[in-house]
């Protein structure tokens, strides 16, 4: 303590009070999305997942051109080559076709189908579930009955029928998947809406005169983002799987086309003889699954407005 310093009366003047100063924002304001990115970046699992997905998307375009083979040319002198035989990194199949090329080409097709199907699911499902849950009452009742009908038809019947009418390709498969695929999304969104709409902050917003559209987009949708994201991270893998299932029952892409489903189905039969023909597509599909789930968790945490601190 410096006791020798004199205390001057100046020090005891009353401070000037400015009521506006308390409201002043000193720091640069952090927008919702900046916040999301900040939170997302701290989640290692999610970053790894995102990186793998990006890597696979890039590979699905670049991979097929990394050696000199295409997906359909057959060569009976090099049937069933082991992995890493020359530039056949994944080996060859029974037609002597390069599996590296086919795997990445197949990944591209599968991802395209999945993204397209998931996009349709979300667009239709969120709109439908949102409207139904928010309005409730008679509207909800009618919409739910329709949903129930749609939900109660075994989707295989519709899907098989569609694939018999149109030839199995990227768009028909994606469309067939989303014909019933959006229903779970709509149900989840509706359930959340019903839970949230009776909460105080929505009532407050309504009392303050917020429009329905504003309440939906600003208050309700962001709050159901979590379950939606989780549903999407399931919708994408399940679309990839459903495509694989269609291959299993013989209704997948037509030869010589390739998708992860076609490759898995072919490889599956060879499990006991040439396991590597199953291993590579299975590894790719597993990593895609894992990545989407890690990403989904990370996004969920990051997007949740309640996590804002």
């Amino acid at each position, binding site marked *: 303590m410096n006791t020798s310093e004199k205390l001057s009366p100046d020090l005891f003047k009353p401070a000037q009070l400015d009521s506006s100063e308390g409201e002043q924002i000193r720091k640069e304001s952090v927008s919702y999305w900046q916040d999301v990115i900040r939170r997302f970046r701290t989640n290692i699992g999610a970053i790894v997942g995102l990186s793998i997905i990006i890597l696979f998307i890039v590979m699905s375009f670049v991979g097929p051109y990394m050696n000199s083979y295409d997906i359909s040319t057959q060569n009976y002198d090099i049937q069933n080559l082991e992995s890493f035989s020359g530039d056949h990194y994944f080996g060859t199949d029974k*037609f002597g076709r390069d599996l590296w090329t086919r795997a990445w080409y197949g990944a591209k097709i599968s991802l395209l189908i999945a993204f397209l199907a998931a996009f349709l699911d979300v667009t239709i499902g969120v709109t439908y579930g949102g409207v139904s849950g928010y309005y409730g009452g008679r509207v909800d009742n009618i919409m739910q009955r329709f949903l129930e009908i749609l939900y109660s038809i075994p989707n295989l019947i519709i899907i098989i029928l569609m694939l018999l009418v149109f030839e199995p390709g990227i768009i028909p498969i994606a469309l067939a998947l989303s014909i019933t695929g959006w229903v779970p999304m709509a149900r989840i969104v509706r359930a959340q809406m019903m839970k949230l709409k009776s909460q105080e902050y929505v009532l407050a917003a309504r009392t303050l005169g917020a429009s329905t559209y504003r309440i939906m987009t600003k208050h309700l949708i962001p709050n159901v983002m979590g379950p939606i994201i989780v549903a999407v991270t399931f919708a994408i893998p399940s679309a990839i799987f459903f495509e694989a299932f269609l291959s299993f029952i013989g209704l997948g892409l037509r030869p010589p086309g390739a998708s992860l489903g076609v490759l898995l189905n072919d490889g599956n*039969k060879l*499990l006991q003889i040439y396991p590597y023909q199953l291993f590579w597509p299975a590894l790719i599909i597993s990593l895609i699954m894992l990545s989407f789930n890690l990403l989904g968790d990370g996004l969920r945490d990051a997007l949740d407005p309640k996590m804002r601190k």
Partner: protein
Amino acid sequence: MRNWRKLTSTFAILLVASLVLSACSFGGGDSGDAKGNVINLIETAEPPNLDSARSTDSASFTILNNVNEGLYRLDQDSKPTLGMAAEEPTKSDDNKTYTFKLRDANWSDGKPVTAKDFEYAWKRAMNPDTASEYAFIMNAIDKAEEYNAGKAKAKEVGVNAIDDKTLEIRLKQDVPYLKDLLTFGTFLPQRQDIVEKHGEKYALDPDKMVFNGPFVLSEWKHESSFTYKKNDQYWEKDVVKLDTVNVTISKDATTSMNLYNTGKVDYTGVGSEFIDSNKDKPEYFLQPESTVFYTEMNQIKEDSIFKNAKIRKAVMIGIDRQTEMDKILKNGVPAAGFVSPAIRGNDDKKFRELAKVNIEYNPQEAKKLFDEGLKELGLDKAPTVEIVGDDTSGAKDDLTFVKEQLKQNLGLEVKITSVPFKERLERGKKGNFDLLLGGWAADYNDAMSYLEIFTTGYSYNRGKWSNKQYDELVKKAQANENFDERLEQLLEAEKIMIEDAGIAPGYFRSSPSLINQKIKDMHWHAIGPDYSLKWTYVEEGK
């Protein structure tokens, strides 16, 4: 809260109860190693129906062959041998009426087998009300076709039980394959009292039918398994050595392989993936078949390039079937012609051995013909064509191979359309294809079974290939009762078909299989039922 807990526990109790209840549905574990006189087999499909008048599939016909017996049955060499018929029939002077004497034999319930049982069963199959989908196999019998189409009465049909043990059959005209034909499942006898007692439910379960063959069906767990037991009433029961045959239904090739490898079954078919690793084993064998796979080429579409014979021929000889058989499909041999090697020609030789044609792969010649054909059509470049086939994995492999071959050898671009079976039929019927991949298996042991289907106007001829000379030869052969001349006409017809490339035969299929070496004298048939167990036994001491 309390409510919730109550609900949860109710739920749990319900769940446990349903689990316990459904546990009752487990089948018994009665299959095991081949011991004593018991063997365990695999069937790849649930037999839909064991009513011989209505059956259409090989699973049903195989069971019927082992539990019932017609006038003839197939012997160890797949030749017809006397069954319920006591002796060879007497023929009328015009060779059209056959009179059979039946042997003394009983049904499994002890009642005698009579000529009436045959007459009843056959007429029942032909009766339009039965809606049999195989009645047309009986068209060789006088007025059978008319009765089946509702244009004749039952009593006009050429089948007559003269007395309990005498059966008279009147044919439209004499045919060389009559004995073979009579081994077919639709010609098995049926008991009127049993059929009428069970009505629509006849032959849906073992207790709703009777048997007159070497075995009885003792158990049938639908979609799961069925069991044969030796028939004590069978007339030649001393020949039958097996006591029990358990048959498991397994639809997946890998599953069947796993069951075989763990000793659960003594026989399995081998999927193409498993052929290389099994083909050197002593248990490996090729089960004969009469199926030929071929490509039809569209003749109806306005701008079809396949109207040109040279282009058709190029497709026929431009595909390396030997490589396909050796390296990809591995379940057959390249087709030298259209009629299967299993089919008889005359009494000594098979049709194939006598054949006048032999399709040989020749890519240079094919390319030359293809280019010439295009020039004749005034085209610089062939348009992309669509090939339609089934969606089974075998058919997809075939399509994939053919596509690549046509591209490499002819420069013809092909788009593959693999569709479910019914869709393929529909496409074929409507002519909605350029190339159509199909297969044909014989109904009876004669080349006519193959050659008549590509005559002009026949419903099975979907490419609508038409050749006057061919039609005439087949027609002549159909009416010819001189069997040597008839054979000559059929051989000539096949030659014309191949030379004009009316269709492009691909390969003759056979089924690779594995069987426990202890099982002896299980006899396989290319036509009709898959196998006969009458003479089968288990070798002891190994």
